[in-house]
């Protein structure tokens, strides 16, 4: 891990180029967020520690269907900008719009895991269900975390979330927009772990700490009884 320093708006980051979360003035680079500063080959950037979700192309997000219009769905992605899922990006089937009711596929209030396929300069967001990981999320529970903390919940190459899934035998889907969907017999334990990560996100070696906590709670809950198995859809 490279050296990360806590910076606040206006802090000087040195000389070089300004990347995300930084700006250049009179040949010097300054931070524009409260966050962790990093430098890679003269490019300074700041990872913010708080803030709302700003949609980015390629992000996997959890969305809620807000509206169904003629040939598209309007999706709330926990951001000031609403997203559009066009019919052509949702299915490969031929659909006769004059005869089909689109609520058959997704209806009001449905949760979907989807990918952002494009974001324009004026923040018109388009979604796509083409990727294999995209799907409808049936039942389960949804919690909200700070979008800036999502990378910590996922962990390095998914290590953190895989560990929670493995121990609690739940299904977990983490959206880059700060929504986390959990389903299984130990939903409450998994949710407790996620909120704990959000609260302690700055601590090093958090994965081991969470693992110990979950293993203890699982042992308390089931003792020598057999634990429930993960049910895949």
């Amino acid at each position, binding site marked *: 891990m490279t050296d990360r320093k806590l910076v606040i*708006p*206006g802090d000087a980051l040195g000389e070089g180029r300004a990347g995300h979360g930084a700006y250049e*003035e009179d040949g010097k680079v300054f931070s524009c967020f*409260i966050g962790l500063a990093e430098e890679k080959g003269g490019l300074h950037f700041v990872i*913010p520690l*708080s803030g709302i979700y700003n949609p980015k192309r390629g992000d996997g997000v959890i969305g809620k269907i807000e509206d169904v219009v003629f040939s598209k769905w309007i999706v709330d992605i926990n951001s*000031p*900008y609403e997203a559009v899922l066009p019919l052509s990006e949702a299915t490969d089937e031929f659909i006769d719009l004059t005869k089909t009711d689109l609520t058959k596929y997704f209806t009001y209030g449905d949760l979907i895991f989807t990918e952002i396929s494009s974001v324009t300069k004026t923040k018109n967001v388009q979604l796509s269900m083409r990727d294999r990981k995209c799907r409808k999320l049936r039942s389960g529970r949804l919690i909200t975390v700070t979008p800036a903390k999502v990378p910590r919940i996922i962990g390095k190459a998914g290590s953190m979330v895989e560990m929670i899934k493995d121990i609690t035998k739940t299904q977990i889907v983490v959206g880059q927009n700060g929504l986390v969907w959990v389903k299984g017999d130990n939903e409450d334990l998994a949710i407790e772990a996620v909120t704990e990560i959000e609260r302690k996100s700055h601590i090093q070696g958090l994965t081991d700490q969470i693992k110990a906590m979950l293993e203890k709670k699982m042992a308390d809950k089931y003792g020598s009884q057999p634990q429930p198995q993960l049910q895949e859809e």
Partner: protein
Amino acid sequence: MTSDFTRIDGRKWDELRPIFASVGVLNKADGSAMFRLGNTVAVAGVYGPRKVYPKHEEEAERAILRTKYNMAAFATSERGRPGTSRRSIEISMVTRNALMPIMFLDEFPRTAIDVHIEVLQADASTRCVGINAACLALADAGLPMKDFVASCSAGKVGDKVVLDIAGKEDTEGELDLPVAYYPKKKQITLLQMDGITTGKEAREIIALAAKGAEKIYEAQKAALRTKY
């Protein structure tokens, strides 16, 4: 200008009242802060960027910044009439103008950023304390900013130039001059004056207020670092 005298409350001529600042005081707001200068207390809450209602206020290429200053009915020794007044509309507007130069508003097109400032206890310089709290709350909300502006007032009491007017100095003094200062660029983003003076003396007072603002700037930065 330098003089050795003690003020009504025992301060020196260029001494600020005690500063206390804390960040993240409101749970529901996206960003919040409390700023206290002596007996003046203000709480600021920032909401957004969020969708703009009414929709016609929306701007296609940038976020709009909306500020609302309000003083609680119990903030002064005599009960104030609650709600919007001519005074609060004016202060909301000057606060917005003071904050605009430090914000990167084009990062969030078609949204609104709402800043609510509540003065809970008033003992002069409420607009300055409000701006200081608002700046911290904006940073806490994770909004992109160039830097902070720090605000402080100076004035004249009985022919003597003093920093950070409070209490009787405000009600009985001759001049009150609030300044919001952008330390990095040495620019002034708010300048108002209540009283009569000469151009030369006004410059002295402004310079003194800017010096006070730099101390407040350091306190703001320290408060934000403690939270994270």
